[in-house]
């Protein structure tokens, strides 16, 4: 039993067990079901309630119902979108750190001369399309469709390994499940020593 307790306290590389997203390390989690804080269980029961909308007794909700609520063709996202919304629902500054402040106010990001949105406190923009066209336009970015990501045990491109529907998101650099994150980092997919992570995409 003691061994089991110790086991749960040690962060294991390559697994969510013991990672910052393993909330079982807190004494008040009794169920020990590690996935539940982020993933909602599916229920199918009919709701016995005096519903005001009578058509909805078996309604099931979808988390972040519309992935990419902004047009897929929009190269510049004015707001965080897609899978990054999952991160931001907890990382709101109250429940968990909000290192991402949003695309409003603060420092203007520019790719070449095209306005790229505004991000405060040196936050990296997210939810924007990073493709060959952008790298050509910017001049200081590698082409994500040909440049290899350089992630451990991978021979795939940036696009294949790090982008989501051609978009850069929180999960491009952060591995929420800690399956490939570098130990001792903020769940980064690549060590930031020597700015290796930045230089994956930025040709400086």
């Amino acid at each position: 039993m003691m061994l089991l307790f110790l086991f749960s306290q040690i962060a294991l590389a390559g697994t969510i067990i013991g990672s910052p997203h393993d909330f079982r390390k807190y004494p008040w989690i009794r169920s020990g079901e590690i996935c539940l804080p982020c993933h909602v269980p599916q229920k199918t029961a009919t709701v016995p309630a005096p519903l005001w909308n009578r058509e909805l007794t078996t309604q099931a909700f979808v988390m972040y119902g519309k992935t990419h609520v902004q047009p897929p063709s929009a190269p510049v996202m004015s707001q965080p979108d897609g899978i990054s919304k999952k991160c931001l629902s907890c990382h709101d500054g109250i429940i968990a750190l909000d290192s991402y402040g949003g695309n409003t106010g603060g420092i203007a990001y520019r790719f070449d001369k095209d306005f790229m949105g505004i991000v405060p406190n040196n936050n990296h923009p997210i939810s924007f399309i990073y493709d060959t066209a952008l790298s050509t336009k910017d001049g200081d970015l590698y082409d994500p469709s040909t440049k290899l990501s350089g992630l451990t045990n991978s021979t795939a491109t940036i696009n294949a390994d790090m982008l989501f529907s051609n978009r850069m998101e929180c999960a491009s650099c952060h591995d929420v499940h800690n399956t490939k994150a570098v130990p001792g980092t903020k769940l980064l997919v690549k060590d930031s020593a020597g700015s290796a992570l930045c230089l994956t995409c930025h040709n400086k």
Partner: protein
Amino acid sequence: MKKKAFILSMLIICMGCAFIPEKPAAPPPAIFYPALPQRPRLQFLHSISGESDLGKQQSALQEFLFGKRHDQFLGKPYDVAACKGKIYIMDRMYKKIVVIDLTGKKMSFLNDHGIGSLGDPAGIWVSEEDIKYVADMQRKQVLAFDENDHFLRTYGSREMFEKPVDVAVYGKRIYVVDMDKEQLFILDRETGQVIRTVGEKGEFFKPSNVTVGPSGNVFVTDAFHFVIKKFSPDGKFLGTIGFHGDQIGGFARPKGAAVDKNGRLYVVDAAFENVQIFDDQGRILLFFGGSGTGPGNLYLPAGIAVDDNNTACFQKFADPNFKLEYLVYVTNMFGKNMLDVYGFGHWIGESVPGK
């Protein structure tokens, strides 16, 4: 001389503009919950993201004479509260309280300074007397500001709190949730002394919000247990509302909560991007909002408040067949619509199905 003539002619043109009645645009279709032909209970009314959404127009003449007005905008609104004539927003981007003056149609920051400076504000509550109570995670205190926005006093200390994230006030009691201590504190409003704490036995898992109902019952969002816990004014546990799940009535990322004068509980869910309404027995009645960027949709919502005092300010946005009873404000952390205003009311038009 030529310049003066130009200015004069501009003035005449501008004044002329002011007298030309604008062609009324066709009103957008009303967004009801539930949608017609069912009997609607709630209507989406308006979004406020900046000063220009408050309806104060700058005439062309004013712009010509004084230059374009610099509007104040909301940044990342988290919590919201209201009293007569005012809405207060706890804005996480500015880490300040934004005061929306509905009468003067303007926005400004609550001028916290000196000993009353805010560090890292999280939750806000406003009493009927317009006393503002703000939970501050950095100061580990609750700060109070009077009806003129002057600093009044603090509650608690670094010894008492770890991470006070929200506050609610009822009568002589102040309720504070501490997310790190996992406790609900009940303080005396006069003395600031702790009357009781709830949660020492691990009852809560990251409690994030607190609100009180019309009879003084206390509702705590037990965020990672995915339920709302209900307590008597003395802190006696009365039951839970909701469950962890994707079925209607369930929660995935519950946050702000508010109770109307009939005891109906409103709960924001940031993952489903909606608000669910429960009756005073905890039974689900309705949900509204939903993911998207359209009018009435929510975008990573967080805070909610019910407002009985300012309905008249928003009646003009309501359908002629829909009589407003009170307002519901919901904050969105992102998206173009920062503060969504809904009206709870009743249908007074032609007969529709539903009780």
